[in-house]
């Protein structure tokens, strides 16, 4: 069966999402960067900024020098995650086999779904329309028989300025489609490879395609073989749905950044109570805890610990104390805290002869607290601490 792959690409994703929330940013040069020092690097730029000589990875002072009108926004990861999740929710309606690539990019494997959406091109148009209508984001799309060509096709569309265009490469025409394009459009051909190819007088993909794989391997080693296949539009990689180990995540974004240790600790305890309750509801146990601390200067620290599987507050409280103290390594104010409970396993049904004798009263207290929270809300009752 011939494969049909769509690559959805929202160009300048970070800026596009910011512009949805703040329409005044439209048609103005915008960059995302951490504005703490002038030496910070630019993370993402809009097309207008690019026209003024601002590029991702450029030092901020240089960007401001090139484009004095540049609007600099701080990264808002939560917003990007939310937008990506919403986008994935839309594409998941078209196919169960989709692969999120990074913010605003996804591969959709539409093989065998012709009867549902009336052809892969129609499905791509529908997906673009859905994303535009629901998220107010313009998505480019590439349609082809494999991941490589669909990605290049969507890049051709978005770099040409048609942010919501579509490029359909018919089966058997992959090599012809790639032939006139610049080698830099091939995935994996970054600056260093590009320079090496330039030394060989290779600028276009068709010039690369005629070089034998043996010769390319002499220059690039094993990558040469891959390059040879890519230049001919050959790519058998399957679309792989994200592999994610199940985990329970609780996030707390503070209203005001704080570096008050006791305040932060009380907040992490609140996260733990919520996460542990979810764990018990799902009848699972956790064997690993990760705490991530996001500081106001956009730096992060994290700590983790493995332990004997458990799901009760009493067992997790000493662990959270220890992990939190290790994660909080700086005196800088904290913006956000994330608590992850990983390595989840079901509560064992087979009872053990040598199980640690649990304090039955503590179990009853946990159960009673869960009931109170069910009825009166999350903050109705919390663990306290003797002075």
């Amino acid at each position: 069966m011939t494969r049909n792959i769509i690559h959805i690409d929202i160009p300048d994703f970070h800026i596009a999402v910011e512009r949805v929330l703040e329409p005044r940013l439209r048609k103005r040069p915008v960059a995302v960067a951490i504005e703490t020092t002038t030496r910070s690097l630019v993370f993402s730029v809009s097309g207008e900024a690019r026209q003024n000589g601002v590029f991702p990875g450029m030092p901020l002072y240089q960007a401001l020098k090139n484009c004095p009108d540049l609007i600099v926004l701080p990264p808002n990861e939560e917003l990007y995650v939310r937008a990506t999740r919403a986008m994935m929710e839309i594409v998941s309606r078209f196919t169960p086999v989709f692969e999120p690539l990074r913010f605003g990019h996804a591969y959709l494997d539409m093989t065998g779904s012709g009867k549902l959406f009336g052809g892969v091109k129609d499905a791509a148009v529908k997906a673009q329309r859905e994303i535009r209508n629901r998220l107010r984001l313009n998505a480019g799309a590439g349609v082809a028989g494999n991941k490589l060509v669909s990605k290049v096709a969507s890049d051709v569309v978005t770099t040409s300025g048609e942010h919501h265009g579509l490029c359909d490469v018919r089966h058997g025409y992959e090599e012809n489609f790639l032939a006139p394009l610049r080698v830099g459009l091939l995935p994996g051909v970054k600056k260093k490879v590009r320079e090496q190819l330039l030394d060989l007088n290779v600028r276009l993909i068709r010039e690369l395609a005629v070089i034998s794989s043996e010769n390319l391997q002499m220059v690039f080693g094993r990558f040469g073989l891959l390059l040879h296949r890519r230049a001919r539009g050959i790519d058998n990689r399957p679309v792989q749905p994200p592999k994610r180990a199940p985990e329970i995540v609780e996030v707390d974004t503070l209203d005001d950044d704080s570096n008050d240790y006791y305040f932060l600790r009380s907040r992490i305890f609140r996260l733990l109570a919520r996460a542990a309750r979810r764990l018990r509801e799902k009848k699972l146990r956790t064997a690993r805890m990760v705490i991530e601390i996001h500081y106001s200067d956009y730096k992060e620290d994290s700590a983790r610990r493995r332990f004997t599987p458990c799901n009760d507050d009493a067992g997790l409280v000493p662990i959270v104390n220890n992990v939190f103290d290790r994660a909080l390594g700086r005196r800088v104010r904290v913006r956000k805290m994330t608590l992850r409970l990983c390595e989840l396993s079901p509560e064992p049904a087979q009872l053990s002869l040598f199980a640690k004798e649990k304090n039955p009263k503590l179990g009853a207290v946990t159960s009673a607290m869960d009931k109170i929270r069910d009825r009166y809300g999350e903050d109705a009752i919390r663990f306290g601490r003797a002075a």
Partner: protein
Amino acid sequence: MNFTISKSVFYDALQKVVGVVPPKTTISILTCILLELEENTLRITGTDLEISVTLSLNVNRLEDGAVAIPARLLLEIVRELPDVPLNIASEGEERIILKTDKGEYKISTDPREDFPKTNVEEGEFHFSLQSKVLDHMINKTIFAVSADELRPALTGILVEFFPTEIRFVATDGHRLARIVHQYDLPPEAIQNKVIIPTKALNLLLRNLEPNKSVDVQIGEDHIVFTLENSTIYSKLISGMYPNYERVIPQDNDKILQVNRELLISTLRRVSIFSNSLTHQVRFILTPDELTIHSEDIEFGAEATEVISAKYKGEWLQIGYNSAYLMDVLRHLDSEEVIFELKNAVSAAIMYPPEQESDEVVTMLLMPIRLTEEDAEEEDENEAESEHVYEADSSTEENEQPDEGDAKEINE
């Protein structure tokens, strides 16, 4: 080295030794066995550095010598040969030739010096046991040994020495087997306890000969079993064995007596319908009846059988892993088996109604926590049984279901 031996004798001997050779090892010499010929005695030694087996047998000697030879290759070729006399002779220093009347097989060898030497130290005390007793005690307990490498102490059998008895205990945390044998031990052995690796005991079982005495020598960190023709040396497992006596319930007040074979055959049938991961079967105990039920929700299959049993306790429902339970039952020899029970979350004690005069066998099995659906069903059953008992209250006053137990299950 040059000798002649019958194929069947040589093959039997190899089988007893090759078990110790590790299937995968980074030390290639350990995949070999050492053949040493001195006068008319051939000594075959295998080791994995923790356990060593040495076996002696008589051969027709032509020339003394010693070589290390790949164990599995030798075993495979000897197994495939017909039962004819074999001649094994060294060819130079790096090969042996195995000759039969049909042909010859050449195998590369290693020099004797490369084979690790086993230094058997003097033991702290020793005693003798009849091979029959040893075989019985190992077989009754070895099935319950844990395979969990993270708890090394549980991967062996605990042997405890008391003034007039020896105890063998094995557990994997879910079931426990204990056998106590009456025996007068030397005073220096008293209050000692050792954990013997399963691999050593399996090798011992393979080497035991009926109606012979086995000399057991125990040192600080090793044990040596000396049999008539072979010697097995093993390092002991260090580490703390859990306090198993603490988990043997003392207050199990409900007694169930059931025919062992009948229970095994019923379990075999009913467990076909159990979940393939949990093997959960449910015991529902009512006066003089035992209902065994299993279901696999994923496939919509279920099975129920009722067998007669002697039971005079309250209505009780317990879940067990059928594989574990059948294992325990198969290792009891009696016609009937007694279960001492307390509730759905406590260990069941199992033993034969009549024990041998010089031994006491006790098995323990922890139940499976019943799921919420089971518990709900249990509530319904309890309500039904209450109704039945109310109707019969004049005759069966003592068999009212215990609300306390049911609550415990629900929680």
